[in-house]
């Protein structure tokens, strides 16, 4: 039987084919050969994909497939007398081979060879790292404040007393300094670790005329003994907007926008009068508790409100330090605790976690 395959290597001339009947016979033998090979594969039980691929190669392969040889050796040199019959037979066989191969792949077992995959087993995982929650929170704040025109600027952590206190209307011996117990640098006299990011207010306004609209990220330091809500280093974002037409209403709108963006659109806000030397009027900014929605819970100590940060209209005295005309310009400033915001948002009850850098903490915020 296999010599039918040999015959495809020879031309009709050499095979001595002289009638249409002979042609029909040759093609019948070819189809029989193909069907046999197909059956043999099935009997061996190879996977469907291999089975169809093997048949495809030996019959349709571009270099030495049986049908390729038929086309080259029989079809091409054929005399006009046989051309028609040959063509019809060739197409018939080709169609048979194609449809058989298709059938093999269509069979229900074609895509599920072997035992099926246990989907509950893990895949191959390339470990990914994480960005620190403080950084993630900063990014969100930059996005929120960037969307309403606040540029990001940075300043030094080792500051002078002038920028950290005096230029913010906190002269030496001002009781407000009690709330900001300060680390001093021994071998750089006159320098301290900034207690807030507010020094960038004066530093920015010294260099730039209004309009000013900035946020200032960075580390700040206070000489507080560490506990669940205190750390001698934490992160702030200072905000400052100064222009000819900035009012208390703009201040309210800005921080309300922030609160709704950060905690969700259902957030309500309120301002309580307060005191800071560098703002006037000053306010403590509260947001409705995002946990209970204002009904009262553990997070908000049953008050329905959460204290967010201090803020207010820039005290005109501050403009005196940067040669702004206080009669012409007005503005607002705020200083929010970034770690605290993250603690509130994610229900973290221990500030120290942020700086221990235990990977089990870090990986909770992918």
């Amino acid at each position: 039987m296999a010599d039918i395959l040999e015959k495809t290597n020879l031309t009709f001339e050499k095979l001595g084919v002289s009638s249409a009947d002979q042609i029909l016979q040759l093609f019948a033998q070819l189809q029989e050969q193909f069907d046999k090979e197909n059956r043999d594969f099935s009997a061996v039980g190879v996977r469907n994909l291999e089975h169809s691929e093997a048949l495809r190669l030996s019959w349709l392969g571009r270099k030495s497939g049986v049908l390729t040889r038929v086309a080259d050796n029989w079809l091409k040199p054929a005399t006009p007398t046989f051309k028609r019959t040959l063509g019809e037979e060739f197409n018939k066989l080709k169609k048979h081979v194609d449809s058989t191969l298709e059938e093999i792949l269509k069979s229900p077992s074609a895509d599920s060879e072997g035992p099926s995959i246990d989907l509950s087993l893990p895949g191959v995982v390339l470990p990914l790292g994480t960005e620190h929650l403080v950084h993630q929170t900063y990014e969100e704040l930059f996005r929120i404040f960037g969307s309403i025109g606040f540029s990001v600027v940075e300043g030094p952590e080792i500051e002078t007393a002038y920028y950290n206190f005096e230029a913010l209307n906190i002269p030496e011996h001002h009781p407000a300094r009690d709330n900001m117990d300060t680390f001093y640098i021994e071998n750089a006299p006159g320098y301290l670790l900034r207690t807030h990011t507010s020094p960038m207010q004066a530093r920015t306004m010294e260099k730039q005329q209004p309009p000013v609209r900035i946020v200032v990220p960075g580390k700040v330091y206070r000489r507080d003994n560490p506990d669940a809500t205190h750390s001698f280093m934490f992160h702030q974002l200072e905000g400052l907007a100064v222009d000819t037409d900035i009012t208390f209403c703009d201040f309210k709108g800005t921080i309300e926008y922030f609160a709704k963006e950060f905690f969700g659109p259902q957030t309500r806000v309120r301002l309580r009068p307060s005191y800071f030397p560098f703002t006037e009027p000053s306010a403590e900014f509260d947001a409705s508790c995002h946990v209970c929605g204002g009904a009262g819970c553990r997070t908000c100590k049953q008050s329905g409100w959460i204290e967010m940060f201090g803020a207010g209209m820039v005290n005109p005295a501050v403009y005196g330090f940067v040669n702004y005309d206080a009669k012409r310009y007005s503005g607002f400033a705020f200083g929010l605790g970034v770690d605290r915001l993250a603690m509130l948002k994610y229900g973290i009850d221990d500030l120290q976690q942020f700086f221990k850098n235990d990977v089990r903490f870090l990986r909770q915020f992918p």
Partner: protein
Amino acid sequence: MKILYDWLKEFADITAPAAELPSRLSMAGVSIDSVEESAAGPVLDAEITINRPDLLAHAGVAREVAALYRVNLKPIQTKVKESSDAAAKVARVEIEAPDLCARYTARIIRGVKIQPSPEWLRQRLEALGQSSINNVVDVTNYVMLELGQPLHAFDLDKLSERRIVVRRAKPGETMRTLDGIERKLSKDMCLICDARAPVAIGGVMGGAESEISFSTRNLLIESAWFDPISVRRTSKTLGLRTEASLRFERGADIEAAAFASLRAAELIQQLAGGEALAGVVDVYPHPQSLCKIELSRKELLRVMGADVPDREVDEILAALGFAPVRVDVNRGSAGSLAAVWACTAPSWRGDVTREIDLIEEVARLYGYDKFPARLPPAKQPAARLPHAYEEARLRERLVALGYEEIVAIPLVDPERDAIFRPADTTAAVIGNPLSEDASVMRTSGATSMVSALEWNLNHGQKNVRLFEFGKVYEVRDGKPAETRTLSLGATGLAREQSIHQSAREFSFADLKGDVDQILTLAGGARWEPARMPWLASGFAAQLSLSPNGHLVIGAAGRLARSVAQRFKLRQDAYLAELRLEPLLEAIARHSAALRYEPLPRFPAVERDFSLVLSDGTTFAKIEDVVRALDIPELRRIEAVDLFRGGQIPAGKYSLLLRVTFQSETATLTESQLTDFSARIASALGEKLGTSLRA
């Protein structure tokens, strides 16, 4: 400050229940933390901002409540029976330091009987957290809590010559205060002295010698005004904070001094009997004039952005004691934009001196919630930090490589930091650290990185890869300097065991690969052997950026085992520290210079060379030799396999080198490839003495 609700009602027609006050007061700037019941009625725990010393008194809080509810204040009346003898005949007061003490009044009461206070007084004081001492001392405290003016009662008979001299302390002077502690005094401290010696530290605490005892018969009641800065400095220096110093350092009401002691005299007469001498010895050399301030609607609108009705402005300012008077030409017409109110700041409101202060008063009592919120239009595009984009790319790449970002506190242990400190660097030292292990600013990111690895290893986290964007700090010529830095740290397994693959230790090659992946953003890096005390020798590299090769940007390597042992790290750790600014600049430059290269149209061909090399022959040398041949079709040189031992003699190693060729213009022919291979083989043999294995 604790406030008794019932006491408040003595000063104003308050009808609102105690439970309602916290929320109303909070929204006007007096934060109430809690309301608790006591024997003397409900107690409100108020947080008083430091600008409002007048609220450290019941009368002051009552005024605030009255203004809030628009109810009347009740006048405070005192009835004192004075004897015909004048106080001035009995006692003398001299102020030698008027800059520290602007007013001193002394009232004399003779023939008192010191005894325990009656129940009502004890209850009130105790409800406010004060312990009861005796009737006279309790009265001075009571009046302070009532009116805000600290008083001090001296035993008149213990004051030498019945004289009060207010002066600065002399060098080396000491005195024993009421609490029994011998205090070292220094100049600039304000002392109250008798003819002989100090009897009190002005505004802070009385002395033990002249203290009221059960045998005291005659009293001198001091009611004075001390300079806030001086009191604050003194109390800080002595570490002695008292109810009196708290009030004086925030600014007491100088006009209230005489009245407060009159009120005390009234109560003392009621509770301890005795005879109040006529008048008060009052030394007040430069009476202060009250501050006149105008509030205009124009300015109110400019700052607040929304209006407050005339009637509200009038009522609020009047209720707070500012005696507003409309002085503009349009007075009489409501809501005039030209409206101006002339005000006089009462003596108890030293915090109000400017128009903005009045605006705040009006706004907070009118209610911050009544001002509408709106967003100001932005006039400029919002800018990110310089190189924020480059930093984000670095960060995302580190995260993709499996590194977790950490944030460390830069205050570190000086001994630890010294291990990683670059030569010729002086750390910024904290003069007043909280603890020794947080007393310098770190000079290297590695200080924190190793601590973070240590923490994780000690908490069962053995496979850790970390990075930090931070700063290092130093002092140069007495000035601080901060430099941004990127630190990497890794230890444990690079790949953990799973059903798909086996575990693999993190190695130097992992560090190198990771660092190279990052530095590709900047065009790649050169690794050169380096010596660093904290990195293992032979496993330490200095990194410079490839394009110019001279810009050293950091170091990388394996933590020296001696250092690892100090930190009790029981596994190898790998570290890298890169200067961030030059790196970010290089990334920006490199990205800006990126240009498209057409994809090759002709196939690439690989040829492998199996080399046997002497130890010490670096891959870089091999690369150099091959590249020196200047074969334009050379595309890539890779080390595919490396091994030692087996058939390879000692001192040698075998390297499988793979070289890729590709032409831009044609498919390479077999003869070209044979020629390339031959040239490479002979060059390697000639230059490096390499033998080619079959």
